[in-house]
């Protein structure tokens, strides 16, 4: 009897995709462009641009990963992780209201701590990577963790800002009664945390039933046993949940602090200008 997680037969091993095949795949983009033009959506050019960018970015990343795997140096792997973190931080704060510098600091540190702790846990206790910086594992795992953390950080910060702005009267009413800002902003914090965590919770609920995650699909396409692929996917799902929860907690609680002065006064930038007089 063949064990479930043994390698597939050679006849079903990875089918190589050639550059020519990629050219044929571009036909799919042309279908999308044709439909966009037909309906006058006005996105045809951006679709082509997006496709070209995706190709360029992925080809570049492919070569960078090949080089990192070949060089196999811990400091180059760490540099790659740092670049991933910086790009993710920038992407997380780009569309957020409020002070950009402050948010870069908060989301960057939150993602660094959350992703670092999660990666350390997974690489030492679960997957037990050797050597500790093995780029084949560290880079994709870190990328997936940071990807989830980035979305959570952006949602948490945006939602907290909008909740505090909307609940300004309630928060000031609590402060005026002598409440600490922890109590005054408790409802806003709870809503921001829920908003940031719900996509992850929903993702856990439907994984494998509605969606087959990209990593698992990729492993199966690359010839891995589906039972091995799901084990990795379970690890990925759990580490994303942990990273999202940690990022959300750090961003929400730290960002909240910036809305209050040490003397428990509420400061909401967008609202200050509206109530300049009286």
């Amino acid at each position, binding site marked *: 009897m063949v064990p479930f997680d043994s390698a597939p037969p050679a006849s079903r091993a990875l089918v190589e995709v050639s550059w020519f095949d990629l050219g044929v795949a571009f036909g799919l983009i042309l279908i999308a462009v044709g439909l966009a033009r037909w309906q006058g959506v006005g996105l045809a050019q951006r679709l082509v641009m997006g496709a070209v960018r995706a190709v360029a970015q992925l080809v570049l990343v492919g070569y960078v990963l090949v080089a990192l795997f070949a060089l196999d140096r811990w400091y180059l792997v760490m540099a790659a992780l740092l670049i991933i973190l910086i790009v993710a931080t920038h992407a997380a704060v780009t569309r957020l209201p409020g002070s950009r510098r402050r948010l870069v600091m908060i989301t960057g540190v939150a993602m660094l701590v959350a992703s670092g702790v999660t990666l350390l846990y997974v690489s030492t206790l679960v997957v037990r990577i050797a050597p500790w910086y093995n780029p084949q594992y560290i880079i994709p795992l870190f990328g997936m963790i940071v990807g989830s953390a980035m979305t959570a950080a952006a949602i948490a910060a945006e939602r907290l800002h909008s909740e505090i702005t909307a609940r300004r009267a309630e928060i000031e009413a609590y402060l*005026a*009664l*002598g*409440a600490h800002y922890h109590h005054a902003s408790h409802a806003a914090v709870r809503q921001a945390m829920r908003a940031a965590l719900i996509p992850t919770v929903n993702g856990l609920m439907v994984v494998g039933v509605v969606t087959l995650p990209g990593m698992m699909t990729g492993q199966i396409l690359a010839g891995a046993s589906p039972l091995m692929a799901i084990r990795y996917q379970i690890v990925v799902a759990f580490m994303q949940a942990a990273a999202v929860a940690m990022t959300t907690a750090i961003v929400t609680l730290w960002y909240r602090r910036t809305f209050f002065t040490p*003397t428990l006064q509420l400061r909401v930038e967008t609202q200050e200008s509206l109530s300049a*007089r*009286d």
Partner: protein
Amino acid sequence: MQEATNPMASDMQPYADASTGATRPLPTSLPAGFTLKGVYQVKAGVTVVDGVDMDIPHGDIIALVGPSGAGKTSLLRLLNRLDDPVQGEILYRARPITHYPVQTLRRHVGFVFQTPVMFPGTVRDNLQVALTLGGNQAHDVEARMAEAMALAELDCALCDRQGDRLSGGQQQRVNIARALMTAPDVLLMDEPTSALDPATAERLMETTRRLSREQRLTVVMVTHRLAEARRSSDRLIVLERGRIVASGPTADVFGHTTDPRVRAFLATEP
């Protein structure tokens, strides 16, 4: 009468105190009045309080009136430190208000907002929270609630009603009762009747007058209803563009002000 002073003549330092955890008790032996010295406030680059000097005596009802944008609310917010002035000094019970822990100060100086704010839950929840915020595990919660409800002239039958189901007038009374739960010495009221019909507003003002009289409560009230200020307040302060342009006993200000701008403003009384 002009009470504003030359800002350059004041050598007061801007507020810089950041203490919230100190445990200096309020000196209850001193009268619960305020003194403002050369107070300035700036919001979004605009000077909204422009060198205000004034005394708020203990136990009086003080009405702050003035045209829209005169800085009335901005001034009121300084008194329980929802904001701090950029310059000048505010004394409460003869000591700078920055000397008191801010949470303690706020429990002694209650604030009733223009639009009533109901916390989630019932009226009872809304009142109890005022005690639990201060870590007060008083065994007499029910008695204090009943007292606060009675003072604000609220029917005890409303206790278990959801706060957001009440009328505007009832919500404002719950807000007053909630502010009274901490047994404050001063009640700051920011246009408390602006959202109410005239009859309800008049009843609320009657309650306020009785509270001040019976509880020796100092009330500082912003209002745009001059008739209300005339009937309810002991002292009147007229603000214009962040400056005090008239102040004194209410009857005197209405009766004897010679400043033509103040007379014109007071003449707008319906």
